[in-house]
């Protein structure tokens, strides 16, 4: 069990579901061990979160265990989607724990977001990889079959075709060296919305009431040079699904993942993104953790998962 996730399923606000899928991993396999690895390396974390003043074990988190994975990924994703839909229908937020990134598709389909935000080293915009359309390398493209747009935070690699796809209007790429500034603006916009109308995250504020862009320069801590044309309304105006692919982090911090990509994000940067976005999210997952390190990737994944729950719960009360 994930530490502190002892709430009864019937009254839970958050339901963790291990999804140890490991069939399309293309380099270092081992995501089948990811969910248990994350549970194991979360044992040392304090229950109390000083950012929010909340205790994790008070937040109604239930660990539903793992959905044993088999090799038909499409069928597996379909079953997982059904389980997550059941969680949604019960008024809770289902959190898949990967498992290869393909499992995010189940969450996206179940929660049907307007915006898919992803912390990821890779664009994942391929239509197929090695002839397989149901691959961890196609997840953002498949998410765009459900969501209206995708924001890929920390992406630093992709094929020529993927970069071309990324240049279309429905995709925004925030490269690693812009993530800190982008997150500062994200925090400003997020706080403005939350201060203006402390609505539950499952009931996002309408952007028509917020006038997000008109006075953004008036905030002293906003970075007005960055992404001047970024459409913040699209982030805060609809349902947001946040997917954390642990390879978004620099491999120095999270080597236990399938396809390491250098020049990545600092854990603190990922933490800031998760904290800022969590109150506005209706779906979340953390994926691509394997067992090929000393627990660095799993510890980071577990910590980001907890950060999400703390921040989401704090703003939903």
């Amino acid at each position, binding site marked *: 069990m994930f530490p502190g996730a002892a709430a009864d399923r019937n009254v839970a606000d958050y339901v963790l579901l291990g999804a140890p899928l490991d069939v399309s991993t293309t380099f270092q396999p081992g995501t089948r061990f990811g969910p248990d690895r994350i549970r194991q390396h979360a044992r040392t974390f304090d229950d109390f979160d000083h950012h929010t003043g909340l205790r994790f074990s008070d937040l109604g988190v239930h660990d539903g265990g793992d*959905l*044993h994975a*088999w090799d038909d990924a499409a*069928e*597996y994703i*379909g*079953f997982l989607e*059904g*389980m997550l839909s*059941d969680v949604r*229908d019960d008024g809770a937020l289902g959190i898949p724990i990967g498992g290869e990134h393909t499992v995010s598709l189940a969450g996206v389909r179940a929660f049907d977001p307007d915006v898919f935000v992803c912390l990821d080293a890779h664009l994942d915009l391929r239509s197929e990889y090695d002839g397989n359309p149901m691959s961890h390398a196609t997840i953002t493209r498949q998410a765009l079959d459900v969501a209206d747009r995708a924001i890929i935070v920390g992406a630093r690699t992709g094929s020529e075709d993927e970069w071309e796809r990324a240049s279309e209007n429905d995709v925004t790429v925030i490269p690693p060296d812009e993530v800190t500034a982008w997150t500062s603006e994200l925090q400003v916009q997020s706080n403005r919305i939350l201060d203006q109308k402390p609505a539950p995250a499952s009931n996002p504020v309408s952007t028509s009431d917020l006038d997000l862009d008109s006075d953004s320069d008036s905030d002293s801590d906003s970075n007005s040079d960055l992404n001047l044309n970024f459409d913040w309304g699209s982030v805060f105006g609809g349902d947001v699904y946040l997917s954390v692919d642990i390879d978004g982090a620099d491999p120095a911090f999270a080597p236990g993942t399938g396809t390491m990509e250098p020049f990545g994000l600092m854990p603190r940067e990922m933490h800031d993104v998760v904290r800022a976005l969590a109150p506005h999210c209706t779906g979340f997952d953390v994926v691509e953790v394997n067992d090929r390190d000393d627990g660095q990737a799993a510890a980071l994944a577990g910590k980001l998962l907890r950060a999400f729950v703390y921040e989401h719960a704090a703003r939903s009360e």
Partner: protein
Amino acid sequence: MARQQTEVRDLQEGSYVMIDDTPCQINAYSTAKPGKHGSAKARVEGRGVFDERKRNFTQPVDAKVWVPIVDRKQGQVINIDGSDMQVMDLETYETFPMRIPDGMDPSPDDEIEYLEYEDQRKVV
């Protein structure tokens, strides 16, 4: 009790099952593979026969579940009274009131089909 017991593995889309003690018709049924240990699980999604509410469960395929025996019966409209109608069962000649469903415009002597489970009825 108008119900019988079966195993989850014997359910299928379109059939009835009790979910949360309520008769439901199954509209989605899928199974997860078992692996070496543990048994295969099935996810069953149904809709309440009488209240239309969506319900679901995920259980091992060898778990026992109750299947309600929902009767499909013939009746005849006897009388209309506002939003209710008096209906007579054409087999037992029992009469009972039923709420007129939205979109239905019955007249006396019309023959109808309805589902019945214990004291709940619904025009089909």
